[in-house]
């Protein structure tokens, strides 16, 4: 199974390590044409606005096509990129998931936190860093993870997005779930 990690900027290496621990063959994707060979894609944390600048129009179009056809999982900035609507400030999204995401919704770095949430009915550690919030969930979106009353990990079909950083915790369950999804077992 070939998994790409979008490696324009951000914590792509942490995702690479985690996916390799789980047995995936990982490619760091910097060029749009590299997407053609991938079975699935992880969009890491980082600065979503910077991702957009580095993608350019061509890269954005190619990525948009990929996420409509193939499995994708975005964390934090990746979640923002996959959303249909982005606020604070408004920003273009790939529209793969019918969610509205508010950037820096908790505040600045001093409000970053490690919390216990629930994923797939089990407690799990969640690392939030200058994290966004999913403030609106559209029709047909399944909530896989919650923190308090907030949806923090969502899925529709083959697309997943989370506002926290499972790549920064020891628990491998979220990445395993995505790999199962790519393998057609979810």
């Amino acid at each position, binding site marked *: 199974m070939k998994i790409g990690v979008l490696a*324009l900027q951000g914590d792509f290496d942490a995702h690479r390590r985690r996916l390799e621990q789980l047995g995936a063959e990982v490619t760091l994707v910097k060029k749009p044409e590299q997407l053609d060979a991938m079975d699935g894609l992880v969009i890491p*944390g980082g600065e979503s606005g*910077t991702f957009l600048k580095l993608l350019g129009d061509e890269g954005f179009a190619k990525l948009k096509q990929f996420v409509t056809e193939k499995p994708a999982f975005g964390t934090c900035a990746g979640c923002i990129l996959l959303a249909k609507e982005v606020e604070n400030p408004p920003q273009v999204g790939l529209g793969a998931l019918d969610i509205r995401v508010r950037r820096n919704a908790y505040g600045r*770095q*001093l409000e*970053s936190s490690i*919390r216990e949430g629930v994923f797939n009915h089990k407690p799990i550690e969640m690392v939030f*860093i*200058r994290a966004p919030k999913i403030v609106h969930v559209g029709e047909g979106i399944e909530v896989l993870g919650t923190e308090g009353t907030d949806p923090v990990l969502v899925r529709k079909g083959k697309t997943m997005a989370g506002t926290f950083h499972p790549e920064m915790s020891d628990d491998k369950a979220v990445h395993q779930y995505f790999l199962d999804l790519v393998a057609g077992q979810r």
Partner: protein
Amino acid sequence: MSLNNGNSSPRLKVGLAEMLKGGVIMDVVNVEQAQIAEKAGAVAVMALERVPAQIRAEGGVARMASPVMIRKIMETVSIPVMAKCRIGHFVEAQILEQLGVDYIDESEVLTPADEAHHVDKHLFKVPFVCGARNLGEALRRISEGAAMIRTKGEAGTGDVVHAVKHMRQIMKDIRELTSMREDELYTRAKDLQAPYDLVRMVAKEGKLPVPNFSAGGIATAADAALVMQLGAEAVFVGSGIFMNSSSELASTDEATRRAKAIVMAATHFNDPKVLLEVSADVPGAMKGLSVAGLPESQLLQTRGW
């Protein structure tokens, strides 16, 4: 439910640095420059009163920037905002934390406030970045609580030579450690003037326990790619974007083009085709000062202990 406790804070501090990897952090002195930086794709801005080239040219005591100016920049951009405090000036750091900046740079670019001690960075919730010229210095800063290390280089010169020197030195020091016997690490720790536990950790992992960025004299896309190929995980660019010389500002158009080129270079640092394209897009670079021609007394990198 919050799990925040004494152990979670270092992970959150290093975590933000992880998010900045592969990116460019740009020095800015006002709202307009911060907007140019964000539009060009900077992952963060460093809010300063004057860029290092101006500090070097104008002299005087360089201190923490005005909180009013920093706050205006925080209100303007959505990317993280960093600010500098003087070496050892823990009250400037307390003020910056209270202001809510996302990272503090305890920086040799400002005039040191203490000739022997750095800030005890463990006492803060806000993360710190510190400069280093070699592994010993990097590990001393990490033991004090720094969550990110950057090379010092020679700030404000536009001459990349010492950013290269310091990155090579740190990487060489790390490689040496990885080939040593366990019992040799004790003496090496003594030589490096660094805590043994950290020395042992680096020997085992082959890398610093926190992200390792580069700063100090990076002026062009090629400079950024050079330090990245040498092992830097992200770059800080200061005077090189907004200055033509130590006194003359670059035009908005020039600064924008330079900033965009450096952002592209930090991502595609291993791709000469992209580096050629982005380099051809930029009209010129900061005139700069050759570090080799600077008297010892004017070096900023020797500040810090």
